[in-house]
């Protein structure tokens, strides 16, 4: 499969979300960050019982309501209308972040501007200009038992997002343990990126060339295979 084009043959966001969804364990409590990570819920595998937490004080929420059916007191952290599944509960913000900070969530999945090989994450602002906004990201990266990232492998202008050291302002230090990108699945262990899966058409050299820090191998590297057609 010569001629792999990083920008054209990469996975779509839906495909990255699908891949991340496969790792969500049955019976787990999960917080999905605003935006792209939220898409993961759509691809939750059949038969897995997952409870979603949103930091504004709801546990066990379900799909978005039909248009016109929204109740704007019933929203998620992204201010989108939600519905409740049986067994849902409401609580105030301090209890909600007790769930986060206290280590009660099994998994938090966030987006990223940059991820460093030591697990540092930068995902809240790109520089010092404009209006900064942090929300719950800095809380979520500490506390959840596993913190994963879903992201394009490179920036829009082709620069690596996986780097030796973050240059953007940090969200958290040494917090990310797994990264699902548009090209690969990479674990972070002992300050190193460990390649677990990559797209089958992509060579190690091609992948390393768009990665800003050394990719290490520890055992097999599996093919990253996802459904072609995801809506």
């Amino acid at each position, binding site marked *: 499969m010569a001629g792999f084009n990083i920008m054209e043959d990469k996975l779509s966001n839906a495909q990255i979300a699908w891949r991340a969804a496969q790792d969500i364990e049955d019976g787990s409590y999960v917080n999905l960050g605003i935006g792209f990570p939220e898409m993961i819920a759509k691809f939750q595998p059949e038969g897995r019982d997952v409870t979603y937490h949103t930091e*504004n004080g709801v546990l066990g929420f379900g799909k978005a309501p039909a248009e016109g059916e929204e109740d704007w007191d019933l929203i998620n952290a992204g*201010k989108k209308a939600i519905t409740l599944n049986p067994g849902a509960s*409401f609580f*105030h*913000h*301090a209890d*909600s*972040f007790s769930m986060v900070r206290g280590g009660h969530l099994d998994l938090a999945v966030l987006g990223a501007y940059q991820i460093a090989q030591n697990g540092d994450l930068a995902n809240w602002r790109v520089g010092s200009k404009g*209006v900064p906004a942090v929300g719950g990201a800095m809380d979520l990266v500490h506390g959840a038992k596993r913190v994963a990232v879903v992201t394009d492998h490179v920036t829009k202008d082709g620069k690596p997002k996986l780097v030796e050291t973050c240059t953007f302002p940090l969200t958290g*230090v040494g917090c990310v343990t797994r990264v699902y990108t548009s090209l690969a699945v990479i674990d972070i262990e002992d300050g190193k990126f460990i390649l677990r899966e990559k797209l089958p058409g992509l060579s190690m050299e091609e992948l390393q060339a768009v990665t800003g820090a050394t990719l290490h191998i520890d055992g097999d590297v599996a093919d990253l295979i996802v459904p072609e057609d995801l809506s």
Partner: protein
Amino acid sequence: MDKTLSSPAEAVSAIPDGAKVMIGGFGGSGAPIELIHALIDRFRETGSPKALTVINNNAGNGHIGIAAMIKAGMVKKMICSFPRSSNAEAFNEKFLAGEIELELVPQGTLAERIRARGAGIPAFYTPTSFGTELAEGKPTEEFDGKMYVREQWLKADFALIKGQQGDTVGNLTYRLAGRNFNPLMAMAADKTIAQVSELGAPGTIDPEQVITPGIFVDGVVEVANPQQEEVLVRTGVVH
């Protein structure tokens, strides 16, 4: 000990210039729009209260609520976690012009700092923000092999909150996810004013279902069919 207030206007009448005011809600969910608008109306009529510090998760949306407060020029400083919304023009303009201060606080730390004041805890350690620019200048310490940042309580003179059911001694419940910061702010402010959709006699709320006990509430005003910020924003309402 009847804490009933006759109107939103009366409810906000004692807030002075320069006050620190916590305002409940997360986006439009649980936002006390009628109390905020009464405060804006008072400012337009009398020039007071001005130079307010407002504590909320966000910094307003559209042309109503906190956004309208900011637009009106009553707000000196926002303490919030996420000053972004579908239409954050009011805050953005003032901020980029240097006409409003911003203290940005991670959302969980904001909640915990508010709760800490209510609980008489002047400072606590959190892992949140360690190693980031939001921790600069704050003491840090290691506990059980992990690094933590010390944060202090967040005080306020007034809290304006929104409940669902209330009784005349100040007990409150909340509606759905509209609970969010409201019970915490009720604990934290020197004076807490609640608007409620239904106001009843003591005993109308089952004691086991009270979310905010009346001890945390100083005044309660019935607003029977409260406006929803999100609906106002989506329909382009300007206050």
